[in-house]
């Protein structure tokens, strides 16, 4: 069966995200837009993954959990895991390396942890955007060591991408590369390509997606879903909406 996936989304925990984007609204909007596999990837934090897991269960979506991490080089990289516990554990590794800049919600936007019913559980006080004390290589190695998928985000953007920050693609075992337009940059075709919405607002959910074939459904376990995706990436079986 054809699975439509969007692996890069932000909730109200990301400061640049809209306060409106609670995990439950994100899940509902994704379902409305025909997405069957969705991931939550807030900046340097996985705090809304528990609520997101419950939201996806309620709505009937397959889900993956992780972060969009900012490396020391200020490259954005997605790390994805099959279950909330792994994502939270990963989130702790990231947070331990995040410098302690006090967050200013008025200037920078709110960073809110919520439950599935949109009750506020906490305000994140450390600014989540800055680079963590880990390089691209460190993030790739650590994610793979934890059996996650590691995907450099929006590699063709003019900011916070591998190409904007380094000017070239380092030879690392990325699970895939995320592009936002065609043609992909030189060297990128050697890797599996995906595209995602990178949604910070509800309207943008699913604006870019990719599909792959797998025999998985909401009744599959998180690990089964994850493995099916990993196989599709490994075998370069993705079809992009762009």
């Amino acid at each position, binding site marked *: 069966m054809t699975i439509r996936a969007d692996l890069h989304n932000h909730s109200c925990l990301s400061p640049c995200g809209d306060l409106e984007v609670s995990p439950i609204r994100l899940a509902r909007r994704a379902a409305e837009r025909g997405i069957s596999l969705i991931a939550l990837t807030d900046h340097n934090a996985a705090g809304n993954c528990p609520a997101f897991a419950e939201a996806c269960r309620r709505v009937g979506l397959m889900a993956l959990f992780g972060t969009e991490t*900012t490396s020391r*080089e*200020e490259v954005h990289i997605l790390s994805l895991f099959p279950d909330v516990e792994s994502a939270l554990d990963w989130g702790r590794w990231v947070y331990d390396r995040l*410098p302690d*800049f006090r967050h*200013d919600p008025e*200037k*920078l936007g709110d960073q809110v942890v919520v439950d599935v019913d949109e009750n506020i559980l906490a305000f994140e006080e450390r600014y989540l*955007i*800055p*680079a963590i004390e880990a390089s691209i290589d460190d993030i790739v190695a650590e994610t793979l060591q934890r059996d996650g998928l590691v995907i450099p985000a929006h590699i063709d953007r*003019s*900011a*916070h991408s591998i190409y904007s920050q380094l000017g070239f693609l380092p030879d690392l075992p990325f699970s895939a590369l995320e592009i936002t337009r065609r043609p992909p940059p030189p060297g990128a075709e050697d890797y599996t390509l995906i595209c995602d919405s990178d949604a910070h607002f509800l309207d943008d959910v699913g604006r870019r997606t990719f599909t792959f074939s797998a025999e998985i459904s909401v009744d599959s376990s998180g690990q089964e879903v994850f493995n099916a995706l990993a196989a599709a990436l490994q075998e370069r079986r993705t079809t992009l909406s762009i």
Partner: protein
Amino acid sequence: MNLRELPKVLDLEVLQDTFDDRPLSGAYTSDLLSDVMAHANDADVLITIQSHKNTVAVASLVGVGAILLSNNRPVPEEMIQAARDESIGIFRSRENQFVLSGRIYRILNAE
């Protein structure tokens, strides 16, 4: 010298002119916004090639008065608008950061 005099002295394009004047007492040069956040607190002007909206957010956080973009870098309208909202000037030069930093360093150390 004041910040508003800098464009004339260094022959800079002024892309966003809504900002408060202040004496020019410090500058910082970096392309990593995290580095700017950690070290640019005494800077009045930030010299960088990072011409995007996030630079404005960081400049606002550390209290920089103007951003000076090097290498004649293209500037998106949303960066200019963000800077206008924050009252942070945007200047641009054909020169690279080495030259611009050197010139501003000399100005700051001559007074």
